[in-house]
């Protein structure tokens, strides 16, 4: 993938504790999975969102960047966490709060 885009993702993910690549934005999510992910994450702090629908290069690029085929994608403390299924499962297991606090390697 192109290095400018990679540098942009690196910076975006490094400079915010919780980053959500989603369809739509925080006010108007355009997909149920993105909306649900946002809702869960907002219980754990400030969420920085990136609308992949605003830029086709970002929409395709983020999938290559994380080697994950679907949107939404969640990054916490600079690490790729997964998509909405994994997020829900982590929340259900009570592990999400620890991850945001930087207490678990997961």
């Amino acid at each position: 993938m192109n290095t400018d885009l990679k540098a942009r993702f690196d910076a975006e993910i490094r400079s915010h504790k919780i980053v959500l690549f989603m369809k739509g934005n925080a006010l108007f999510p355009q997909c149920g999975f993105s909306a649900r992910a946002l809702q869960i994450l907002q219980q754990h702090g400030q969420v920085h969102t990136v609308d992949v629908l605003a830029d086709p290069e970002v929409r395709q690029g983020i999938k290559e960047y994380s080697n994950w085929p679907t949107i939404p994608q969640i990054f916490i403390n600079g690490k790729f966490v997964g998509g909405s299924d994994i997020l829900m499962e982590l929340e259900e297991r009570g592990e999400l709060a620890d991850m945001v606090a930087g207490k678990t390697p997961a």
Partner: protein
Amino acid sequence: MLDPNAIRQRILGALPGSEVDVNDTTGTGDHFEARVVSPAFAGKSMVEQHQMVYAPLQDWLKTGELHALALKTYSPEQWKKLGPR
């Protein structure tokens, strides 16, 4: 049309010594759910665990023969703590 047991065998081949359950959720042979408990998952993040299960199924996922696989993955220690639910 895939058979749950074919999926199970592939996962077992990649993750020997695992406990693997696979169900056809829609009865159409392309949407499945799986529960995998594997010692190989110890110390791995959930996304890494899922990628380890998807790895031996890549060709089926690519062709769309396997359209969806909902996963629950656990290390034996996690399973002791969390499962069965």
